[in-house]
């Protein structure tokens, strides 16, 4: 029981971790939270569904296509709701992304079904559970977990090794200095919004065969990803991964040992508690105010 719960917790947690990574990438670069992040995740999942189920594109090809679409949507979010507002206050910035979120959600509802309409994504592995040692494992979970780890590694490599990734890092560390050395910060912001959404898209496509797709799912993933990011200190990439895994495991355990309805709510209780007791997250260092 415990090992089964842990495995499914880690699997969902890995998806939360990916969503959280995207949130952190945007926050590191821009200092804001993209409240449309969950909807970008949801939308990319539906795009993959259309490609794979409706148009018959093979899964291994649908995945990168949806990731590219996610990147484009993220970059578009930057152009609409961040770049024109770069001098505005945080409240305006956040509310603009909230607006985008509802537009995406409404569009998804019209295109892919109304409230309560769930679309299923065909499994890409055998749905039969297998036994590894004592543990019952659904192959799809392993595929998701493996895929998530692969995406994290790819992203780490991108961030550490490529020129674009290094520029993103430099901008996050010190945007003034980055401007001085000739980095065009506006482009870095676009790149960050795009990259964040691309990671979310990968998460959505990995998750799709495991569950159902529905227009309201974005928000649930967003708030859990956000919670994971905050647990990890909001600007730490490894922190986001740890935060995501923690939330996945907590949910699975709460669902298994208390009641299935607690799956939903345990993350919210944890996050309210953490924010009161330790507002800077588990890994975050207290940032002192500068005046």
């Amino acid at each position: 029981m415990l090992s089964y719960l842990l495995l499914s917790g880690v699997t969902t947690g890995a998806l939360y971790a990916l969503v959280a990574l995207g949130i952190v990438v945007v926050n590191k670069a821009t200092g804001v939270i993209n409240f449309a992040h969950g909807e970008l995740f949801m939308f990319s999942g539906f795009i993959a569904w259309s490609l794979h189920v409706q148009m018959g594109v093979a899964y291994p090809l649908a995945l990168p296509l949806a990731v590219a679409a996610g990147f484009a949507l993220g970059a578009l979010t930057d152009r609409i709701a961040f770049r024109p507002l770069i001098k505005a206050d945080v409240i305006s910035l956040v509310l603009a992304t909230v607006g985008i979120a509802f537009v995406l959600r409404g569009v998804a509802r019209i295109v892919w079904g109304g409230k309560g309409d769930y679309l299923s994504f065909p499994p890409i592995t055998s749905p039969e559970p297998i036994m590894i040692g004592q543990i019952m494992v659904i192959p799809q979970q392993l595929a998701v977990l493996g895929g998530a780890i692969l995406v994290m590694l790819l992203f780490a490599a991108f961030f550490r090794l490529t020129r674009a990734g290094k520029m993103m890092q430099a901008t996050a560390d010190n945007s003034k200095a980055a401007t001085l050395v000739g980095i065009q910060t506006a482009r870095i912001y676009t790149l960050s919004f795009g990259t964040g959404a691309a990671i979310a898209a990968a998460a959505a496509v990995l998750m799709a065969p495991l569950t159902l797709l529905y227009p309201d799912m974005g928000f649930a993933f967003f708030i859990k990803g956000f919670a994971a990011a905050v647990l990890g200190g909001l600007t730490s990439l490894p922190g986001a991964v740890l935060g995501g895994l923690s939330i996945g495991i907590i949910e699975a355990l709460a669902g298994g040992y208390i009641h299935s309805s607690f799956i939903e709510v345990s993350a919210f209780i944890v996050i309210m508690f953490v924010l009161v007791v330790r507002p800077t997250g588990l890994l975050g260092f207290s940032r002192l105010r500068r005046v």
Partner: protein
Amino acid sequence: MTAALLSLRGVSVGFGGVKVLDGIDLDVRPGEIRGLIGPNGAGKTTLLNVVCGIHGPSQGDVLLEGRSIVGLKPSRIAALGLGRTFQTSQLFRGMTVLENLMSGLHRRTRAGLIAASLNLASYREEEARAEEEARLALEFIGMADFADRPGTALSFGQQRVIEIARTLIGDPKVVLLDEPAVGLSMNRLAEFDRLLRRIRDEKGVTLILIEHVIRLVMDVCDQVTVLSSGRRIADGPPDQVRNDPDVIEAYLGKELRARHTAS
């Protein structure tokens, strides 16, 4: 010698292992204008932040009128009579100049939720007095005509002076000014010099002045403290500090030494 109004006793501050202030002692007597100078990054602003309660010191104590104020909330410390201005303009963007001044009266006014929302007579009288006092405070700095302008529509220098007035209106005993003269032209500087003296003489307020315009500091301050890399390297009357070889060497550097020998 009168008792100190504000004292620091061995105050140290560290940020993530780096010591930004290292065992600072300071005594400011009532009625003094104290200069606080030092190169960029010396820890001057950090010192003000510790005094007004934004950071706690990792060691040492801060006393206002002999009472420790370490650990109190900034708003509490302000209520005890400590005012300050900031290195960057901190006027409230959504308010006119007059309203900014009136918000400086916050702790000297009383109207609560009921009196204010019901527009009771007690509140209306208090509000009228507050407005009048705010207008007088604007006259004091010679900016009465600017009352109804949005604060952010003014020049940087004007904003800084309004901030000083906003702090003064709260009737503080001591005011900490963080680089208030940035953005002032040479002829405005002379006026500013007079303003600082008037604040001390007419309002009876003790001042601590962080400033890069050395001429202003040497001119107006009774005592000057020099910080460098978080340590106090000199303390005394301007003439003594000006000639202190440590200061010339460690802080003022080549440029001023050249000028110094030239004059």
